[in-house]
C-alpha cells in the first residue's frame, strides 16, 4: 500500500478533528513555513513539481510566483466546485481531512502575501461544507486562522462561499465572477487573476487537492515529494473511479499508476466480468480512450501523449454493453446545459451538436452528420472565452 498524503483519514478515521490531525504531524508544515521567507515557501513548492489537480496540471509553485509583491490586498481562492462529471474527490478531503486543506490555504496565503482566503464550494455540497466549517471554527479557536497566527504576525481569514449550481463556476474566472456575486460568466484574459482577480485584486485559484498537497511538501520537504510518482508528475493523486466497475470509489495512489492497476486492482474490475469498451480518464472533458490504452500511466504527460488528459483524474469506465453515442449525446447535452451563454459559438454550437447527436442516437442520423459535427467542433474550439 502506498503512502497516504491526502487521505489521512484512512490512517486515522478521526483526523477531521484537530487533535487527531495534529497527532499526524498536522500544522507542522505551517509552523515551518511561518519560519521561512515567503519566497522560500514558493521556491519549495516549485521544487516539488506539484502540478494543479484541477484540470490543467499547471505548476503550482510557478502560479504562486506570478502574484505581485506589492502591498495590494491579495486573495487565495480554493476551487471546490467539483462539477466535472465523474469527479468526486475533493469532497472527501473537505469532509474527512479538512484541516489539511485549511493548513494548505494558510501556507499558500503566507507564501503569496494573501490575507484572505475563500473556499468556493459547489452549492449541492452543503453537508460537505458543514464539515469543513466545523474544522475552520476549530482552527480559528486554536489560532491557526485569524490574527497573528502562531505568533508570527501573519493574519489569515478563511471563508466558505457556496455556489448555486453552475458547472462553469469551476473555471477560475467564472469562479471569480461568481464569488463576486455575478453570474458565472468567465472573463477575458488578460488580465490574468494574478493581476486582476477577485474584487479587482491579485488572486490565485487552486484546486482543493493541489492545496492539500502543500502542508506535507513543506513539512517533509520537496525532495520527499519528488520520490513519489514519475518525473515532472510527482506526488500522489486521488483517482475517482466510477461507471461499470465492481468497486467504484476514490483511491489515493502514486501519480503514474497504470489505468489497468487502478481499474482492476483497486476498483475491483469490470462489472459482471465484462470487457472494457471505453474509458474517460480525466473527467468528462477528457477525450475517450479504448481498451488498448489500459496500460497508460495515469499522469499528466503520459495521458497527453496518448491524446487525452489527466484532467481531474476522474476515471469513468464503460463496459461492452455501453452505447457510446448515448454517452456522447448525454455529455453534449450537459455542455449545452452548462454553457454560460456569453460566447456565440459555445451558446449556439453546443445545443446544435447535442441535437445532432441525439438524432443519431435515436436512429435519425443523416448522411454528413459526423462531418458536420467535426466542423461545428472546429468552429467552437479555441474561439471562445473559456475552454468549456
Amino acid at each position, binding site marked *: 500500500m502506498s503512502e497516504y498524503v491526502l487521505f489521512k483519514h484512512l490512517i486515522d478515521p478521526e483526523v477531521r478533528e484537530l487533535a487527531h490531525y495534529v497527532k499526524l504531524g498536522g500544522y507542522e508544515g505551517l509552523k515551518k513555513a511561518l519560519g521561512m521567507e515567503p519566497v522560500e515557501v514558493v521556491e519549495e513548492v516549485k521544487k516539488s513539481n506539484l502540478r494543479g489537480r484541477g484540470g490543467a496540471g499547471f505548476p503550482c509553485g510557478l502560479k504562486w510566483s506570478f502574484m505581485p509583491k506589492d502591498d495590494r490586498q491579495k486573495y487565495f481562492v480554493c476551487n471546490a466546485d467539483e462539477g466535472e462529471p465523474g469527479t468526486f474527490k475533493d469532497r472527501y478531503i473537505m469532509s474527512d481531512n479538512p484541516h489539511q486543506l485549511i493548513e494548505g490555504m494558510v501556507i499558500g496565503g503566507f507564501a503569496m502575501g494573501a490575507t484572505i482566503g475563500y473556499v468556493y464550494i459547489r452549492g449541492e455540497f452543503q453537508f460537505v461544507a458543514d464539515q469543513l466549517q466545523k474544522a475552520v471554527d476549530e482552527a480559528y479557536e486554536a489560532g491557526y486562522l485569524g490574527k497573528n497566527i502562531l505568533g508570527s504576525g501573519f493574519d489569515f481569514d478563511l471563508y466558505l462561499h457556496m455556489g448555486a449550481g*453552475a458547472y462553469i463556476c469551476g473555471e477560475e474566472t467564472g469562479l471569480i465572477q461568481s464569488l463576486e456575486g455575478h*453570474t458565472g460568466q468567465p472573463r*477575458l484574459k488578460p488580465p490574468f487573476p494574478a493581476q486582476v482577480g477577485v474584487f479587482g485584486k491579485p488572486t490565485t485559484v487552486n484546486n482543493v487537492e493541489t492545496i492539500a498537497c502543500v502542508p506535507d511538501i513543506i513539512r517533509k520537504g520537496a525532495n520527499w515529494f519528488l520520490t513519489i510518482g514519475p518525473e515532472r508528475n510527482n506526488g500522489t493523486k486521488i483517482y475517482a473511479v466510477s461507471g461499470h466497475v465492481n468497486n467504484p470509489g476514490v483511491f489515493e495512489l502514486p501519480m503514474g499508476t497504470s489505468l489497468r492497476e487502478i481499474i482492476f486492482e483497486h476498483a475491483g474490475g469490470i462489472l459482471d466480468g465484462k470487457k472494457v469498451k471505453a474509458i474517460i480518464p480525466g473527467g468528462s472533458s477528457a477525450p475517450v480512450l479504448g481498451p488498448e490504452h489500459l496500460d497508460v500511466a495515469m499522469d499528466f504527460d503520459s495521458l497527453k501523449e496518448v491524446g487525452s488528459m489527466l484532467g481531474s483524474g476522474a476515471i469513468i469506465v464503460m463496459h461492452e454493453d455501453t452505447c457510446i453515442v448515448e454517452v456522447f449525446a448525454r455529455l453534449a447535452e450537459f455542455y*449545452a*446545459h*452548462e*454553457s*454560460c*451563454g*456569453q*460566447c*456565440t*459559438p459555445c*451558446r*449556439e*454550437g*453546443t*445545443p*446544435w451538436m447535442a*441535437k445532432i447527436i441525439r438524432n443519431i442516437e435515436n436512429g435519425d442520423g*443523416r448522411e454528413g452528420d459526423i462531418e*458536420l459535427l467535426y466542423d461545428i467542433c472546429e*468552429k467552437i474550439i*479555441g*474561439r*471562445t*472565452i473559456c475552454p468549456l
Partner: protein
Amino acid sequence: MMNIKIDNKEHSVEEGQTILEVCRNLDIEIPHFCYHPGLSIAGNCRMCLVEVKGMPKLMTACSTMVQDKMEIFTDSDVVKEARKGVLEFILLDHPVDCPICDKSGECDLQNYNFDYGIDQRRSIFPKERHKVEKISEKIYKNDNRCVLCTRCIRFLDEVTKTHEFTTIERGSHTHITCVDPEGLDQNPFASNIADLCPVGALGLNEFRFKKRVWLTEHVRAVCPGCEAGCNLTVDLHTKQTPLDPNVGPVVRFTSADNYSMQRFFICDEGRYSYSGYNETERRLLHPELDGEETTNGKAKAFLKEALSSELTGAVVLSPLASVEENYAAILLAEQMGYDLYRPSPFRKDLPEPALFIEKIKAPNHRMMKLLEVPKVTDMESSDYGVVLVLNSIGSIRDNSLVKILSLLKRAKYSITFEVERSEFSENSKLALPAPMFLEEDGCFINSSKRIQRSTGGLGYPEGVRPLWEWLFGNRFTNSESLLTQFSNEKLGIELSYEKIGKEGVEL
C-alpha cells in the same frame, strides 16, 4: 509609436490601442457586434476574430492590444472561416425577417452576412420563436433577432447606471429582459439602446414600420437642443415612393459618433425633437411689412432706409443661430456703430442622470460668452431707432424676451429675422424669413468650446435667404467665407469647414 503589419502592409501606430481600434482608424473593416466605443469590452460575440502571427488561436481584435512588431491578418482564410462560423451560429435561430425589420439597411448582421456569411443553412432544426414585446412606451424588443451582444445592458449599467436590463437564464436560453419599464421611460437616454443594438432586436415604437432607412438621406448635424452640442445623424426623407408613407422631411435623429469628444450617445429629448422640424403651419416664408406679406424688393428698401437713417441702433444676437449668422449681425453692428446684445439663454433643470446634458438650452450660447457680448437685460436705456433681432424664441428666458419686445416696440425701424411667426415678428415693422436648423450650413460652439459644423441638408426653402445676403448682398458667397473671416478676426486662427471636419475643433 509602434510598427506593426496588417495584412502584410506596414503601419506605424500609437501604443495603447486594440487591434480593432487601430484598424478602424486605418479604415480596415473588422466585423463586430459586441464592441462599441462608448462601452466596456465584452468580447462575447467572437465576430472580430483575427489571426496574429505566433498566436496558436485566433484573437479577438476588440480586446487584444497591439504590440510592437505584431503581424495581424484580418482577411486570411482562417479568419474568413471563423466569421462564417459565427454568422452561421447566429443565424441558427435568427428569423432573417429583414423585409419587416426596421434595422434593415443599417443592420450589422445583414451587412456582415452579405459580406462574409454562408449561403446555405445546415441545421435541420426548427428555429425558436418568441413574441415581439413592447417593453415600454419608448422601446420594443424582438428576442428572435437578438445576438446577445449585451450592448444594451452595458449601456444601461455603465453609462446611465440605471440597470433596467439584464440577461436571464443561461446557455441557449439566455435572453435579455427589462426589469423596470417605467424606469426605462424615465431614463433620459433610454432610446440610445435602439441605436446601439447592432440588429433589429431593440427598436423605438415611434419608428416601428415607419420608414426604410435606405430611402433616407443622412446628414451630420449638431443638436440644437442644448449647449452640449451632440452630433446627430439626421435622416431626411428625400425620395418618395408609393409604398412609402409621406413622413418627414425630417425622419429621425440618431447619434453620430464623435471620437474627439468621446461621445456616442444623445439624450432622448434631443432625439425626439426632430418632429418639430416637420411642423410648417407657422413658418415665415416671405418678408412681412407691418404684418402684411411683401416683396423682397420692398423689404430691402425698408432695410436700406433703416440703415441710412443715422439713428442709434441695437443688434440682438441669438444663441440659437449659427456662428455665421451671428457674425453677419456682428459685422453689421460694427459697420454701423450699433450696440450688440445677447439674450440670456433658457435654462432647464437637469434630469437624472444628466451625463453630458447641459442646463442651457441653446446650441451657440458659448459664442456670445466668448465674445463677451453684454446681456440685453443689462441694457440701460432701451431707446434705439434701429433694432435687429435674430431668431431666438424658444431658447431664451422670459426677462430677455420682455426686454427685446420693448426694444422692438420702441424702435422706429424694428427688424426681426425669424423662422416662424412669433411675438417678435408680430411686434416688428419688418420680419425677414430665416432658414431653420437643417436648412443652412453653420457652426456652433458648445459648452466645452468646441466649434462644430452642422449640415443644412434640406437647403433653403423658396423665399428664404441667409441673413448675410439681406445685409451684405453679394459680399459673401457662402457661409464658409463668414466662418473664415470670423475665425481670423475674432479667434485669431484660420478655420475652414474642412479643418473643422466631422468632429469639430476645440478652441
